[in-house]
């Protein structure tokens, strides 16, 4: 694997499958009573979070600790864009502290690329979400979860029908998932109001629909995206009520899904907006699996990026 994990676009299909296979292996080990591996003993991993995300940070922290790495949590929320300490100076600081790997979450698209492409630091960079660009480990854990539920944890995702529903325009989860799911052979349908799709979405090689109700039976996976309530103020949609009615996964839509279909959400959920409580808690929902699998997938990413040296 390359030195950094910045974008799904940088991974070949084989590399992506290798992450999933490695994650499956590591998941088995962590189910034993002693959950720890000595692989990254003595290595330092910094969780550099410029944006609040307790769940992602905890997931990376657990992954690193199960590989015996030392973990430093560095919360620098807002400091770069608000013209406090720059990303560059933060990077130089981490370099001076001897960070072997940096997990970065940042509100600016491309921040992880900048951190990796400049000569600011020598460690590996893992993108844990950059602005509205990508969130590669989320896509990997989603693929892992799909594979676990629909493909018995092996092979690729050929011919699976995946619907991604909601605010595609602002979603780093959607961008990474589209790239990875297509790479693994799945067919992707994006469903959203036209205002929440990029104008050039036809260049993504996905099926695009404005209507959630047709073809509900054809999906193997329905992945709901979080909708930011503040989008309403920018005239992306008229009201929460209308959004929920047209694009929310409610009981009526849930009942039309085929029996093997799984329901996913990257969290945190707005229950009642993009997903109803009965959908989130139904037996089709694998949302809790996603969280669990996040640790294994992030262990695999850290192991493959840092463990080989």
């Amino acid at each position: 694997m390359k030195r950094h994990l910045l974008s799904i676009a940088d991974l070949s299909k084989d590399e992506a499958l290798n992450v999933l296979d490695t994650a499956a292996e590591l998941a088995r080990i962590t189910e034993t009573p002693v959950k720890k591996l000595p692989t990254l003993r003595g290595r330092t991993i910094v969780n550099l979070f410029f944006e609040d995300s307790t769940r992602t940070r905890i997931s990376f922290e657990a992954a690193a600790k199960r590989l015996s790495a030392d973990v430093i949590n560095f919360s620098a929320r807002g400091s770069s864009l608000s013209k406090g300490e720059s990303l560059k100076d933060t990077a130089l600081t981490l370099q001076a502290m001897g960070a072997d790997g940096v997990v970065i979450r940042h509100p600016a698209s491309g921040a992880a690329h900048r951190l990796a492409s400049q000569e600011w630091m020598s460690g590996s960079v893992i993108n844990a979400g950059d602005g509205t660009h990508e969130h590669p480990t989320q896509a990997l854990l989603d693929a892992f979860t799909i594979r676990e539920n629909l493909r018995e944890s092996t092979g690729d995702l050929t011919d699976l029908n995946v619907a991604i529903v909601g605010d595609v325009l602002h979603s780093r989860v959607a961008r990474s998932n589209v790239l990875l799911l297509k790479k693994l052979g799945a067919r992707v349908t994006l469903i959203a109001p036209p205002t929440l799709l990029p104008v050039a979405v036809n260049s993504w090689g996905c099926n695009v629909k404005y209507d959630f109700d047709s073809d509900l039976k054809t999906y193997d996976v329905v992945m709901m995206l979080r909708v930011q309530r503040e989008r309403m103020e920018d005239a992306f949609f008229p009201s929460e009520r209308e959004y929920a009615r047209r694009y929310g996964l409610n009981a009526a839509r849930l009942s039309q899904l085929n029996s093997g279909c799984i329901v996913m959400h990257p969290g945190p959920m707005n229950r009642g907006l993009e997903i109803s409580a009965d959908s989130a808690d139904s037996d089709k929902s694998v949302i809790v699996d996603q969280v669990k699998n996040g640790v294994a997938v992030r262990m695999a990413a850290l192991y493959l990026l840092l463990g080989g040296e």
Partner: protein
Amino acid sequence: MSRSYLFKNLKDAAGKPLELAVSNGRFVKVDSASANFELIDGKGLTAIPGLVDLHTHLREPGKEDAETVLSGSTAAVAGGFTAISAMPNTSPIADTAGVVEQVFRLGRSHDLCDVFPIGAVTLGQQGKILSEMGAMHSSEAKVRIFSDDGHCVWDSLVMRRALEYVKAFDGVIAQHAQDPRLTHGSQMNEGEVSAALGLKGWPAAAEESIIARDLLLNEHVGSRLHICHLTTAGGVELVRWAKKRGIQVTAEVTPHHLLLTDELARSYDPVYKVNPPLRTERDVMALREGVADGTIDVIATDHAPHPAEDKDCEWAAASFGMIGLETALSVSYKALVDSGLMKLGDLIERMSTAPARIGRYEGHGSLAIGNEANFTLVDIDATWRVETLGIRSKSKNSPYLGLELPVTVESTYLRGKEVFSR
């Protein structure tokens, strides 16, 4: 100033042999050159009228760490310019006679190139109240071009009044066409690349809708409208339509919009972050066509210096803009002459004669006898590499670093005096 000399062995832009006689800072007839004229060997170089830039950011007063009138002028003459136009978005903003006179005098005191200040259209470039354009015009700086560059004069009524008002003194309103609502927080051209990168898009329509409105306003009031830095194929179409219809309008394009596309943003390197943004290959081709067929009248640099820390960061945090004075001729030559679209003579018309005419910059834009001897000698067969160390501008935010470019500027002359030699 009183030095008299005769340049032998030069070529004109068409490649024909040329001699230039200069006395008392003006071109004189070659056969009037007497024995006391110093003879200089032009070594086969090409003589062109000094380049004229209608769109320069000099950052003085207020942001002297990025550029000053002196450093900007030094960069300008190294790029072959003998006249530049200082945009008003300084601190304080050039919206009063006092500020434009200060900038004008600084230019005069350095005496490298003529620095013509552009005045703000509205007070504080806020788009609400007209600035005292008449006073700026009557001042020592004799301001004729007004612009809120960096901001669009968005209010239709204010734009209409500004266009009408400057008719009293043959002024020009240079519009930065950008609908602010459609571009709030925008980072780059809206299209395939912005969709992939997750950077907020800047639709072509945000530029074109303002251009269309202003063309119609000016058809109604009959003033002089100049469109700054056109970047889209649709904008070129609109200006072409307007000219056919007889609407008084001139338009400019920057060298970078003639060469670079939004694909470069994939690096997330903010050196490619610029306002208006780099567009697509299709737009670049349409802009080149527009310059070649005369729809676009002038090439202007939009030289926008920024200190290193404003570019050495993540894309969204970086400032918009790139420097361009020292590379303008080479980049334009590469885009338009090397590509076979234009002859050098026509390119010089767009970079010297036409901008001098629009700004009413007397003494610039021509090698005619009796004119001020503002000229530049270039080697059209030479190439050079853009390197940080060679950049004379105080800021180094050039998108061409490391690139090999055609045409070197060998020397530049202002009123007969050599102000730059390579």
